[in-house]
Every structure is written in structure tokens, then in C-alpha cells.
């Protein structure tokens, strides 16, 4: 089973929940892979401390012009949806950072004057701890193409036991690439106005994608009833509530796992898992019914 841990707002506790859920399951004897898809700033390794065994570049294709064959017709510039090619005075200018590697230019060049060559955009690292398998991606600084690296991480995690994906924050392309093809999404939020507003956006996203989901509330006793009222009125289940315990923040700031530093919280993660297992088998229509 593939579970994605996502959120609208950043800093709600995705990494905390992803790592503690993954390790508590692994320590209970399940086969677990943690896939860190927050490729702009992967943090799971800080808590899980995996031993990395491989590191490979992630590349995208970029166009290159064979000057002798180019007639300056400008078709490549015309077909590029991303303005990555400009043809000026019969010369082809390529802007690789804008290229989305769709291949249209190369395919449609009447002179076969465009070839595609690989360009590094990030790296993917694989490893493990004593208990679980681990994959993370890291996007090169200055690059825009996080979805490509995220996709590579997801594919590398494969079907190696249960896969828990730590998604990036937000609701746009990188997040969608991270949560796609999941069997279940846990949306992490906090009981603050920002937490609630951003949650509504994240809910919109998972509904658009047709993915079963439930909510986890971090720092749950901060006391904002609007959040629980929202979930109630939308028919959204809350499957995990972590209280606002300063000791959790202290353990986190030392790079420690909550389930080790504060073992009394382990049952919360165990029951969260049970709730996910119960729900992911529900037909999609039940989730959609709640909307109507």
C-alpha cells in the first residue's frame, strides 16, 4: 500500500508523521519504504539516519540543434509551449531551464536538426536503516523541475513493502506528482486559521485527484473548533491527533524520533495506521458522497 503524507500549509508536521509512522510500522515487523519526495529540502534523513548506498543523477532531456541541418524555419520555436526556444534571424536560441522535455521540437523539426541530450536536475539516493528502506530526492539548487525528481523517487520506491511518501507542502505540481498513485493520503494540519485555510485547498486537491484521504491534526489541543467543525461538515475523518506537547518540539529539534524519545506516543501512530488500513478499502464513491 502506498500512503502519502501531505498538507496545504508547510511546517504542519508531515515529516514528523511520515517518519514516525514509517518507523513504528517497521519496528512492528512490517516491510516499509520511506520515500522523501520533498526534493527541495528533504528532511526525513535527519530523523531516520539511513545508510545511503547509492546516489545517481536525475536527468531531463533538453534540445540541441545540429547547426548544419538547421534552416532557421522557426517551427521549433512555434511549437514550444514553454517559450524555451526562440528563433531569431534564422538562429535557434534554447533556454534549457524553461524546457519541459516534451520532445515536440525534436519530433516536428522538418530537417531532423534537433536532438535531445540529458541535463542533470538533481540526484536520487537510496539506502536503508536497520529497520526500513529509504529513498530520497534532492533537486539541484536553481532548478525548477522538481516533478521529474519526485517522479524518479516514487518509481524507485516501487512496491517495496508499504511505501510512505513524505510529500512537499502546498497543492501544486510537485505535490500532485508526489501523491499521485497513492492508495491513501493523510492531510496534516494544525488548529490555526492558516492551518484550516490551507487544509481546504489541500482537500480540494485530493478530491480533484479522486484519492481517499483523512486528516491528521498536529498540536491538536491549541483549541480551534473551526477546524473540527469544518471536517465534520465535510464528512472528513480525523484519524490522528497529536497534542501540543513542548517535549515533542524539543525532541524534534534534536533530530530525535518521537516514538523513541516519548514512547507514550507510539500508540497514536499505531492506531493511525489501523484507521488508514480500514479506510483505504472504501470505494471512492463513499468519499465523494460526503461532498454532495
Amino acid at each position, binding site marked *: 500500500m502506498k500512503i502519502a503524507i501531505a498538507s496545504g500549509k508547510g511546517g504542519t508536521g508531515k515529516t514528523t508523521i511520515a517518519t514516525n509512522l514509517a518507523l513504528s510500522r517497521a519496528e512492528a515487523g512490517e516491510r516499509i519504504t520511506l520515500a522523501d519526495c520533498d526534493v527541495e529540502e528533504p528532511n526525513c534523513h535527519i530523523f531516520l539516519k539511513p545508510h545511503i548506498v547509492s546516489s545517481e543523477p536525475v536527468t531531463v532531456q533538453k534540445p540541441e540543434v545540429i547547426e548544419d541541418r538547421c534552416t532557421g524555419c522557426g517551427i521549433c*520555436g512555434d511549437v514550444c509551449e*514553454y*517559450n*524555451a526556444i*526562440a*528563433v*531569431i*534571424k534564422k*538562429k535557434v*536560441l534554447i*533556454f534549457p531551464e*524553461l524546457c519541459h522535455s516534451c520532445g515536440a521540437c525534436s519530433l516536428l523539426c522538418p530537417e531532423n536538426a534537433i536532438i535531445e541530450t540529458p541535463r542533470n536536475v538533481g540526484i536520487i539516493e537510496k539506502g536503508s536503516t536497520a529497520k526500513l528502506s529509504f529513498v530520497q530526492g534532492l533537486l539541484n539548487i536553481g532548478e525548477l523541475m522538481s516533478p521529474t525528481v519526485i517522479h524518479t523517487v516514487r518509481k524507485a520506491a516501487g512496491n517495496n513493502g508499504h511505501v510512505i511518501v513524505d510529500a512537499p507542502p502546498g497543492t501544486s505540481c510537485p505535490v500532485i506528482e508526489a501523491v499521485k498513485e497513492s492508495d491513501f493520503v493523510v492531510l496534516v494540519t494544525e488548529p490555526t486559521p492558516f492551518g484550516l485555510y490551507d487544509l481546504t485547498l489541500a482537500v480540494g486537491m485530493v478530491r480533484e485527484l479522486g484519492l481517499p484521504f483523512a486528516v491528521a491534526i498536529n498540536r491538536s489541543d491549541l483549541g480551534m473548533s473551526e477546524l473540527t467543525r469544518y471536517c465534520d461538515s465535510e464528512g472528513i475523518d480525523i484519524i490522528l491527533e497529536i497534542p501540543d506537547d513542548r517535549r515533542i518540539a524539543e525532541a524534534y529539534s534534536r533530530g530525535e524520533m518521537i516514538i523513541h524519545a516519548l514512547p507514550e506516543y507510539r500508540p497514536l501512530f499505531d492506531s493511525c495506521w489501523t484507521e488508514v488500513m480500514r479506510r483505504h478499502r472504501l470505494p471512492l464513491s463513499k468519499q465523494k458522497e460526503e461532498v454532495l
Partner: protein
Amino acid sequence: MKIAITSTGEGIQSKVDRSFGRAKWFVTFDTETKTVEAHSNDQNIHASHGAGIQAAQNVAHLGVEALLTGNVGPNAFRTLQAASIEIFLLDATVETVEDALARWEAGDLPGIGAPTREGHWV
């Protein structure tokens, strides 16, 4: 020769637009025929990527040889250079398109040899 000025409106009395890639209008002036034309840059105003490149291509297709504007980013600069379009900078004292033209004719506007800005999105 044809000159383009980035503008917030369609006429020569319009205030200049200091942006290039996402300028509202390009007002062109033909020094021989003295005709003024306005070309909308609507296509690029909301573009999240590649606005400068597209704007530069559009301006080049109009047969423009000189551009008067406030700022040019690195992608736009590269494209304008490839088109051999000379770029002149409008400082804060230039208000309308008409001002810009007068200052250019007087040789008052500095040319630029490098982009004035880093690239940016929307």
C-alpha cells in the same frame, strides 16, 4: 527605422511601462513615415515563464531596431541581442512615450550592454 517603447497605454501620451517582458503595450514609431502603432502584449502579462523571450520575439517580428524600456531580464536580453535590437534605458524622469522619443532623439538615453535585472516569475 522602427523604434518600440514599452507603454502602459496605446498612445504617445501614455505613461511608459518600465517592465519589458510583461509591459502592457509596445508602442512603435517609424522615424521615416512618422507613424505610431500600438501592439498589445496581453499574451505575456500573465505568463509565468518565458515572457521576456516571447516579448523579444514579438518585437523582433515587428521589425523593430531599437527598444526603449525600463528593465530587461537575462532571457529577454539574450533574445534581443540575437535580434540585433539596440536597447536604451528609460530613467525615472521619463514619463510618457512622447518624452521617451524626444529623449532618444536627443541622444539622451543610455544604451545597455547587459541585463538590468535577474529573471523573475510573474
